[in-house]
C-alpha cells in the first residue's frame, strides 16, 4: 500500500488565522470564546461562541488575503475560511505552482458539517419579504458544502478527485481519512483534505440550543464555558473556522524534498446505530472506531502518547468517550495524555476533526501536548487519567490518536506518527 504523509498545514481558528499563531495561543492556554458579536443574541439562551476574530484583532482573520473580493460577496463564511486554510496548506507544502500533469494527480476532499446556514437563513428572509426575484443568483453555489473543494480546485488548478465529506462533527477526520485512502489507492498523489464550518448565526445557535447541545450557564463568563471533563460542564460552545492539510504520497513528497510533518497510518470508521444525537451508552461506536484505527496502524494502545479527544464539554459525550478510551487502552491509560482543545477554540463541528488533527501533528512536531482548559474539578470518572489540565505539557509524543464523533452516530479516528 502506498504510504501517505502530511506536507502542508492551514488553519483559520478563533485563536488565530495561521498555524503558528493558533498553536502558540493554544499552548499558552488562551480561550477564543466571547460574547456573540455577529448578531444580536440577546434573545438566545446561549449568547456566547468562539468566533473567528475580525482582521483588526491581534489574531484576527483577513479574508482579503487569499479570497477574491467577488467570491467573498457570493459565498458563506465556511467557504471563505476553507479557501484561506487550503491556500495556507498549499503554500506551506510548496505546491502552488503545479504543472497541468501534476494537477491531474492533485485533488480536494474538504467538507463541512452543515455548510452555508447563515446564507440559507438570510436568503430565506429575502425570499419571504421581497419575493423570489430578489434571491441571489449565487445563493445555491455559495452555500453548498462541496463548494470549498470546488472553489479551491478552481483557484489553485487542482484537477484530481474533487470530493466533499458531510458527516456532521466527524467531517474533518473523515475527510482526511478518505483522502489518505484515495492516495493509498493511487487515485491521486496529493490531496487537500479537511473541513470548515461557519454557523454562528441566529438559526445555528437557536437550533443547537434547542437540541440542548450548547452551554447556557456561562453567558457572563464565556471563557469558562467550554470545560470538557469538568463537573460543571453543561454543553459545547460553538466555534468556527477551518483546518486543511496537504496529504501526499510518501515517495512523491520525498522526491521533491518536501518537509514531512507526519504519516497517516491508521483510520477507523464506525456507526453507533443508536440515536440521532445521543452517543451509544457504552461508547460502542467510539470504541470500535479507535480500535480499527489502531489495528490499521499496527500499533498497540501503549504506542499512543497523545489523544486529542472529541471532548465537546457535553455532560454525556465526554463521559462515554472516556469510558471507551479506558476500555480500549487498559493499562496504557497510565501513560497516555488526552486533552480536548475544544476547551480553547470551542467546537468547530465539521472543521473540528481537521483542526484537531493539525494540533496532533504539531504535538508530534514540538513534543508537547496542548491543555484542557477549565478542568477545575474533574468528573469522578477521570481519576487516574492525564487530561492535561490548564497548562500544556512537554512530553514524548511518538504517535497520536484523534477522535471525532457526529450526530447520526458517526465516528472517525485517525492515527498519525512522526517519520
Amino acid at each position: 500500500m502506498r504510504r501517505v504523509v502530511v506536507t502542508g498545514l492551514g488553519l483559520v481558528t478563533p485563536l488565530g488565522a495561521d498555524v503558528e499563531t493558533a498553536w502558540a495561543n493554544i499552548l499558552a492556554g488562551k480561550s477564543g470564546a466571547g460574547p456573540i458579536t455577529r448578531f444580536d443574541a440577546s434573545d438566545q439562551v446561549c449568547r456566547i461562541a468562539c468566533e473567528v476574530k475580525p482582521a483588526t484583532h491581534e489574531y484576527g482573520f483577513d479574508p482579503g488575503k487569499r479570497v477574491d473580493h467577488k467570491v467573498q460577496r457570493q459565498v458563506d463564511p465556511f467557504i471563505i475560511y476553507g479557501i484561506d486554510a487550503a491556500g495556507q496548506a498549499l503554500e506551506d507544502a510548496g505546491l502552488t505552482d503545479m504543472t497541468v500533469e501534476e494537477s491531474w494527480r492533485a485533488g480536494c476532499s474538504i467538507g463541512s458539517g452543515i455548510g452555508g446556514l447563515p446564507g440559507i437563513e438570510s436568503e430565506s428572509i429575502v425570499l419571504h419579504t421581497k419575493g423570489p426575484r430578489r434571491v441571489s443568483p449565487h445563493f445555491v453555489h455559495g452555500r453548498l458544502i462541496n463548494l470549498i473543494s470546488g472553489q479551491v480546485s478552481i483557484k489553485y488548478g487542482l484537477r484530481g478527485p474533487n470530493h466533499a465529506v458531510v458527516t456532521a462533527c466527524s467531517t474533518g477526520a473523515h475527510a482526511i481519512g478518505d483522502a489518505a485512502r484515495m492516495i493509498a489507492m493511487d487515485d491521486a498523489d496529493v490531496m487537500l483534505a479537511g473541513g470548515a464550518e461557519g454557523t454562528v448565526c441566529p438559526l445555528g445557535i437557536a437550533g443547537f440550543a434547542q437540541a440542548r447541545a450548547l452551554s447556557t450557564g456561562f453567558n457572563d463568563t464565556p471563557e469558562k464555558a467550554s470545560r470538557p471533563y469538568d463537573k460543571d460542564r453543561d454543553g459545547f460552545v460553538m466555534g468556527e473556522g477551518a483546518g486543511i492539510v496537504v496529504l501526499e504520497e510518501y515517495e512523491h513528497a520525498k522526491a521533491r524534498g518536501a518537509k514531512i510533518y507526519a504519516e497517516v497510518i491508521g483510520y477507523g470508521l464506525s456507526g453507533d446505530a443508536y440515536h440521532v444525537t445521543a452517543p451509544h451508552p457504552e461508547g460502542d461506536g467510539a470504541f470500535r472506531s479507535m480500535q480499527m484505527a489502531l489495528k490499521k496502524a499496527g500499533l498497540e494502545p501503549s504506542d499512543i502518547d497523545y489523544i486529542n479527544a472529541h471532548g465537546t464539554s457535553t455532560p454525556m459525550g465526554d463521559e462515554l468517550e472516556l469510558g471507551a478510551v479506558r476500555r480500549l487502552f487498559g493499562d496504557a491509560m497510565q501513560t497516555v495524555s488526552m486533552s480536548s482543545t475544544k476547551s480553547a477554540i470551542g467546537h468547530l463541528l465539521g472543521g473540528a476533526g481537521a483542526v484537531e488533527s493539525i494540533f496532533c501533528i504539531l504535538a508530534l512536531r514540538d513534543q508537547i501536548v496542548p491543555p484542557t482548559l477549565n478542568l477545575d474539578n474533574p468528573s469522578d470518572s477521570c481519576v487516574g487519567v492525564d487530561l492535561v489540565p490548564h497548562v500544556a505539557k512537554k512530553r514524548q509524543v511518538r504517535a497520536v490518536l484523534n477522535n471525532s464523533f457526529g450526530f447520526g452516530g458517526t465516528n472517525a479516528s485517525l492515527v498519525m506518527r512522526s517519520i
Partner: protein
Amino acid sequence: MSETADRVKKIVVEHLGVEAEKVTEEASFIDDLGADSLDIVELVMAFEEEFGVEIPDDAAEKITTVKDAITYIDEHKA
C-alpha cells in the same frame, strides 16, 4: 457624469470588485470587467433595487456594457 452613471458605476465596483477607473461607459461587463452571466443577473437585481425600476429578462439580456445599463435606467426610472 450623470447621477445615474455615478450610482451604476458604484454598484459595479462593489459587486465585481474592480477598480473604479476600469468602469468606463464603454466597458463590457463580461469582456472587460470579468463578470460571468450570474454576476450580470446579480448586477441587474442591484440596479432594480437602487433605481426602483423593473428590468425584465429580455431587456437584461441586452445590457452588456455599463452604458447599456445607464441608458436603460434613464429611460425607465420613475
